[in-house]
């Protein structure tokens, strides 16, 4: 098998329709080895449907999905060797204990998975409750058991669908630490989520989906950096400052916003403006460089024309 075939996830033109609704609309995804890849989108954007297609649980109406070069639809369970994870909440048999559930999935995995049960339970800190029936587990414990079930497969690729959903803050923190630790061990992770902080904290690459379509795919750092150059300015005379800023070269998009001014400028232009304002006798209360958060970018991309980064009050664009 060539190295090119070893791309952990390569989806091309994935389409899934339910009647008139197109849940996934020509989605392309490329997740490289070692990526911690955030798959972002609002509820109903098609994230879970995409994951189900990747795992071979549902058939795409068009397109292909390959895991390490293998198509689950064509190669069945063999395509999932080295791949683990869960879509939506992990589900287990409530009338069996946690350990018994893991014994079952380990038996269905083979390859010595049964011998990894104790270690997996330790990793997710469920050893003490392993003999209890899953029916009595909290949501967080089931999520952790889901991770344990995934680890039994000794995965090189982990697909996690909103693993922190429904967890309390402590549980969310623990889950993030766990994902980070697994990623640190070289496991490629695809993390579907709509929790921006989680993705910002864990992921290095992202795809943002909106109504079934990928509206951005690439480096998270590059995405955030693309919004650099925005400044917030508060002065003793905002009206004069705005007029001066609007006339200076290298400064654009000057607006009244957030009780001050917002403008787009390079670092040199911003510095020159601050000097000019001082020379004009205008005091500078604040000149703050501002980078859009992932959340702001997410809303811009997923809510069409609505600009979540904009202030609540109407803005007057001066230039």
């Amino acid at each position, binding site marked *: 098998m060539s190295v090119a075939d070893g791309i952990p996830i390569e989806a091309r033109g994935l389409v899934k329709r339910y009647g008139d609704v197109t849940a996934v609309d020509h989605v392309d995804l490329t997740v490289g080895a070692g990526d911690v890849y955030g798959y972002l989108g609002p509820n109903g954007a098609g994230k879970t449907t995409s994951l189900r297609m990747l795992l071979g649980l549902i058939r795409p109406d068009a397109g292909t999905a390959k895991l390490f070069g293998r198509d689950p639809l064509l190669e069945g369970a063999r395509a999932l060797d080295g791949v683990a994870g869960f879509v939506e909440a992990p589900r287990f*048999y409530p009338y069996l204990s946690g350990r018994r559930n893991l014994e079952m999935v380990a038996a269905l995995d083979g390859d010595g998975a049964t011998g990894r049960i104790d270690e997996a339970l330790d990793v997710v800190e469920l050893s003490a409750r392993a003999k209890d029936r899953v029916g009595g587990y909290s949501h967080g414990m089931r999520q952790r058991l889901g991770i344990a079930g995934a680890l039994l497969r000794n995965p090189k690729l982990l697909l996690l669908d909103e693993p922190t959903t429904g967890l309390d803050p402590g549980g969310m923190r623990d889950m993030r630490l766990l994902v980070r630790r697994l990623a640190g061990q070289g496991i490629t992770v695809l993390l579907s989520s709509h929790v921006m902080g989680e993705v910002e904290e864990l992921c290095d690459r992202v795809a943002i989906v909106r109504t079934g379509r990928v509206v951005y795919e690439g480096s998270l750092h590059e995405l955030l950096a693309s919004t650099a150059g925005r400044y917030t300015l508060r002065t003793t005379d905002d009206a004069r400052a705005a007029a001066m800023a609007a006339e200076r070269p290298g400064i654009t998009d000057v607006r009244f916003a957030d009780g001050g001014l917002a403008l787009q400028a390079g670092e040199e232009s911003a510095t020159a403006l601050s000097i000019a304002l001082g020379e004009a006798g205008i005091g500078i209360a604040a000149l703050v460089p501002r980078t859009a958060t992932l959340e702001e970018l997410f809303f811009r991309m997923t809510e069409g024309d609505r600009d979540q980064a904009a202030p609540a009050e109407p803005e007057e664009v001066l230039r």
Partner: protein
Amino acid sequence: MTAHAVEAPHVRSRRPGVGTVYVWELRKLRAQKRTYLGLAAAFVVPIIFVVALLVDTGGGGPDEVPFGSYVRETGLAIPLVCLAFGSIWLIPLIAALVAGDIIATEDQNGTLKTILTRSVERRQVFAGKLLAAFTYATLALALFVTTALVLGGIAFGFDPVTLLTGTRVSTGHGIALIGGATLSYLMPVLAFASIALLLSATTRNSAAAVVGTLMASLLLQVFGALAALDFLDPYLLSTQFNGWQGMLRDPIDWSPVVRAAWVSALYAVPCLLAALMTFVRRDVAGG
């Protein structure tokens, strides 16, 4: 962008198969309370029948069914009468109880995705579930007949039995014939389990699958009772529950047994193929 690539994970040559799925399906059945409902019914109904006979001091028996008039002469007649009564709804219901539930409940609980993202193929999962459902139906029928035989023997004695042709056979011979009759009876039972499995795979709803199978059983019996549809009678699955009576003749009349085999297969095989195709090709979108 250029994605990093690595050598793909090794595809293993040794993988778990149908046997592993089958063993774990049995373990799951053993851990569920509903499993014991059907077994309890198979155990209790013969007890009720025998107790009712003992309480009824009138001295008669259910003469309208084969061996009904011999129930007080020998306990060997009890399982045969129970088989006749059981075909109306009890045995199809027990067969459907697990077969109708075994796929649908996984769908409803979302556990289907748990087992379908491991290292076994869908067809292997289906085969394991099919074998477990058949095992349960077989076990329930064996329990039903054994309970009736043992209790009947205790209540009315393990005496020789008179066959439908009037020949009287020894107790040992009679028990062997009852075993053969049970095997013949098992064929339509497994066919009903196959119908339940199909309904389980297609409806994705346990209750619908179990009730649907029971309705199918009752409907077939209604067809069998209509004089205008007499021509259908030999091909009705419900009629095949009577095939065992050929075993209780001297010499054994194999024709109803053979008919029970192929008519049962005629119902079961298309149902199982349709269920397999549905299961293998379906989208697992729930849970």
